[in-house]
């Protein structure tokens, strides 16, 4: 259709073809050069109204925010393995406490050796610390946000400490080593044995309590109680035992966190800053105001309110020039994730329609990812075509991930619908003219005259999401599909978009949009067992396809020689089956003070302030 080719032509002119973001930033991931200066304070902007609220790494769903898990706890308590290496979504062996795990016994046994690191109280980080974590998890799975029934730690049959630095895990069956390391071992944070007690005052020479389930529950109870009062974190004798590069010196009720370097940090990169401060903000507007009014160069000789590492709110991408002329640098950050919105396969009226593959394909043809990225994401977005995305560059995706099996095309959508018994009424309501299960007919469970009208829930507060849905509504109207848009707070979406059975009241939702993508964290290896498998926790649309289930099973259990093939098979199947509708994955424009060096965007969202430093310029 003329309008479609017009759209594409215009976009090709405005934006380089391909998946790279055509953003307004300078795009240098990190700067080097300029004489490094010791000291200085780096100010990190927290996300609006998301202050650090919980310090104990065994975190429950209520406190499972990016702030707590990626920008607070990991600064002090090192996870066993560090993920995200120089912008790539891979394991960083150098920064990890544990050496790369060794699989044996037909991939049923994992042996992990720890480096000779120390806690700040002088104790070594030992294999016993890892066992402590596993014991706690096993007894408290209901309080662990990332718990998947049958996953870690359920799939560890026995954990044995072989020596001070070595632990062996025996698994319930053979797993794909990459999968197990990236998705299961990624959930381990060694904890100091100083925490292994049930009360504040503990006698010396005591027996460690975590060895029994009841004991482990009691220890969790004690630690959770200690974590109930954020105002007490800085001075607490419990939380001050750290093995990470930073030590918390103050946390205010509003969420301003101040860290100083942990002088006993054993890792390779010692902090060069004198202080690392996280600043709370009530809105993105407030953060931008401080960026605009603050200084573009930081370091020990500056003072006043400033932001060293902040973000440019999505609406204000045109202001990148202004910020750059004030001395800031802008770096584009894309997390390793795919973005989607969910159809409810169990909804009584919409479910049968969604279950038809041709309908999902037609609907996907209505999503103009390139157009949205250009118009609404300011160029700062990556189209999603596959559940194993090709960007940021990674070793997992196959070449097919860069191609779009369902490009934006009203013509294709229309012909798919008409070929399957629908009467398409542009600017009206299309309806099923030929019901039935045969060729050229609508499909099972779709009565004659069923109209294509759906409700679509989406979250408030995200302008690119609002605008995209307006465009989708407008485009869908041209093939006679009516979308009733409903904007609700994000938590209402979590509360409403649920797996359900067709005749429950909870099943009235039809299309749901989270506004945020599926970030591969802590499941860092992009298999789909948590979202596309039948009955998976993230499978809120009640999607079920046994052949896809088998392919997913293969990715989690394949031996190393076959893992890439299994992953490709899974990715290709899901890519074409459209179990949910793909949409662009937004990036963030990270704003850095001009003389701050060492910042590298981490594909999973973690930060490493110990690598940052100011230069004299």
């Amino acid at each position, binding site marked *: 259709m003329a309008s479609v080719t017009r759209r594409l032509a215009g976009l090709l002119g405005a934006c380089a073809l391909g998946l790279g973001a055509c953003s307004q930033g300078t795009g240098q991931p990190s700067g080097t050069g300029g004489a490094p200066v010791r000291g200085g304070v780096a100010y990190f902007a927290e996300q609006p109204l998301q202050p650090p609220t919980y310090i104990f790494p065994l975190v429950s769903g209520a406190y499972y925010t990016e702030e707590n898990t990626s920008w607070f706890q990991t600064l002090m308590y090192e996870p066993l393995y560090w993920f995200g290496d120089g912008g790539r979504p891979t394991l960083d062996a150098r920064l990890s406490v544990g050496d790369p795990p060794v699989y044996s016994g037909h991939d049923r046994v994992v042996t992990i050796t720890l480096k000779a690191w120390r806690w700040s109280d002088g104790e070594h980080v030992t294999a016993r610390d890892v066992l402590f974590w596993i014991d706690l998890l096993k007894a408290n799975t209901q309080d662990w*946000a990332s718990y998947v029934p049958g996953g870690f730690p359920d799939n560890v049959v026995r954990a044995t400490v072989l020596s001070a630095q070595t632990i062996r895990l025996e698994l319930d069956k053979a797993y794909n080593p990459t999968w197990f390391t990236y998705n299961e071992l990624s959930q381990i944070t060694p904890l100091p044995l100083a925490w292994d007690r049930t009360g504040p005052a503990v006698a010396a020479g005591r027996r460690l309590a975590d060895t029994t389930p009841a004991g482990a529950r009691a220890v969790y109870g004690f630690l959770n109680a200690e974590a109930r009062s954020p105002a007490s974190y800085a001075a607490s004798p419990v939380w001050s035992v750290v093995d990470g590069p930073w030590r918390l010196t103050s946390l205010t009720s509003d969420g301003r966190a101040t860290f100083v370097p942990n002088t006993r940090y054993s890792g390779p990169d010692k902090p060069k800053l004198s202080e690392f401060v996280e600043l709370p903000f009530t809105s993105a507007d407030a953060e931008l105001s401080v960026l*605009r009014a603050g200084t573009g160069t930081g370091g020990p000789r500056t003072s006043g309110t400033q932001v060293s590492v902040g973000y440019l709110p999505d609406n204000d991408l045109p202001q990148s020039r202004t910020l750059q002329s004030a001395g800031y640098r802008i770096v584009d950050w894309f997390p390793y994730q795919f973005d989607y919105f969910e159809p409810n396969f169990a909804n009584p009226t919409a479910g049968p329609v969604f279950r038809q593959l041709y309908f999902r394909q037609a609907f996907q043809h209505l999503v103009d990812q390139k157009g949205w990225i250009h118009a609404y994401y300011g160029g700062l977005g990556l189209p999603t075509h596959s559940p194993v995305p090709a960007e940021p560059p990674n070793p997992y995706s196959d070449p097919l991930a860069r191609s779009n099996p369902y490009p934006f095309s009203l013509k294709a959508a229309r012909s798919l619908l008409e070929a399957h018994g629908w009467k398409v009424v542009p600017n009206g309501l299309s309806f099923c003219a030929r019901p039935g299960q045969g060729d050229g007919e609508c499909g099972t469970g779709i009565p004659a005259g069923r109209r294509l009208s759906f409700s679509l829930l989406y979250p408030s507060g995200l302008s690119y999401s609002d605008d995209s849905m307006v465009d989708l509504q407008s485009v869908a109207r041209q093939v006679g599909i009516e979308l009733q848009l409903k904007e609700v707070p994000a938590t209402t979406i979590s509360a409403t978009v649920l797996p359900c059975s067709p005749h429950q009241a909870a099943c009235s939702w039809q299309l749901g949009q989270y506004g945020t993508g599926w970030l591969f964290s802590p499941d860092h290896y992009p298999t789909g067992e948590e979202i596309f498998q039948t009955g998976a926790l993230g499978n809120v649309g009640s999607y079920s396809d046994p052949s896809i289930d088998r392919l997913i099973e293969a990715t989690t259990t394949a031996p190393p020689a076959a893992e890439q093939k299994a992953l490709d098979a899974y990715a290709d199947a899901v890519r074409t089956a459209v179990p949910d509708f793909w949409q662009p994955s937004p990036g963030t424009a990270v704003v850095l003070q001009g003389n701050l060096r060492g910042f590298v965007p981490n594909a999973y969202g973690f930060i490493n302030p110990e690598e940052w430093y100011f230069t004299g310029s």
Partner: protein
Amino acid sequence: MTGYVVRRLCQSLVVLVGVTLVVFVLEHLIPGSLARAILGPRASPASIKAFETANGLDHPVVVQYAVFLGHLLEGNLGRSYRLNQSVDSLVAHQLPNDVLLVGTALVLALAIALPLGVAQALRRGKAFDHGATGVVFALYSTPSYCLGLLLVAGLAVAVRAFPPEAPQSAGLSGVLHDPRALVLPVLTLTLVNVALFSRYMRSAAVATLAEDFVTVARAKGSGGLGLVWRHVLRNSLAAVATLVGLSLPAVLTSGLVVEYLFNYPGVGLTYFTAASSSDYPVMLGITVLVGAATVLGSLLADVSYAVLDPRVRYG
């Protein structure tokens, strides 16, 4: 009078309980699973069950309400699901911010509105009167978030006259550390309130000036003028007292937009965030406080008016 006050207090208590009941019931009518709203979309069934048990959500609504009332009587306002703090500590920390912000704006608005209203009344029907009405209403008609954004764009970013953020350290010490930081937030609130207040002051002053004995006093000349002013001021005080009383609940909730724009966490923003993120304990706790402030403020307004205007009597 005492009898009246006592009766009103008793009634206020009933009203307060009624308010909490309404909010409680409405919360439970909101569709969807509260546990999933809090725990997120990937929550396991065990965590959902544990959350519901730990927070008493598996009991009938009546029982939950009774438990809530019980806690309330002990002075326990509840504990946030998300912020890992008790409502008491949240409010205790943020209320001084609100009092400072809204209180200052209130005082400033009154300080401008009182003389303005009287001046308008004295020059009633003239160009000054209409002009002032125009300016003041124009400010009132502007949504406060627009006004705030314009002020920041103009006075904090384009011209670095004031900081773009309100004071970041808590309470009075924060303000003293950098008093300029409070200027823009207070200005935003004040400009919107001046209209409301001056309109009211003007009509109060007009009514007073129209009274017979005032006309006589003015005719008598400057000696009588002192009498006029004292009478006008006294009646205006009555109006002021009413305004302050009825503005009491606003101290807790009206700062929302300003807090949002100027990075000044306060009760208003906390309430809004809690309402949007299903953090019901915070919502209920603050509702209790706002309700108490409302009924108290209303009572204060009525009583002070009676005290200051001898014509008013309560049976």
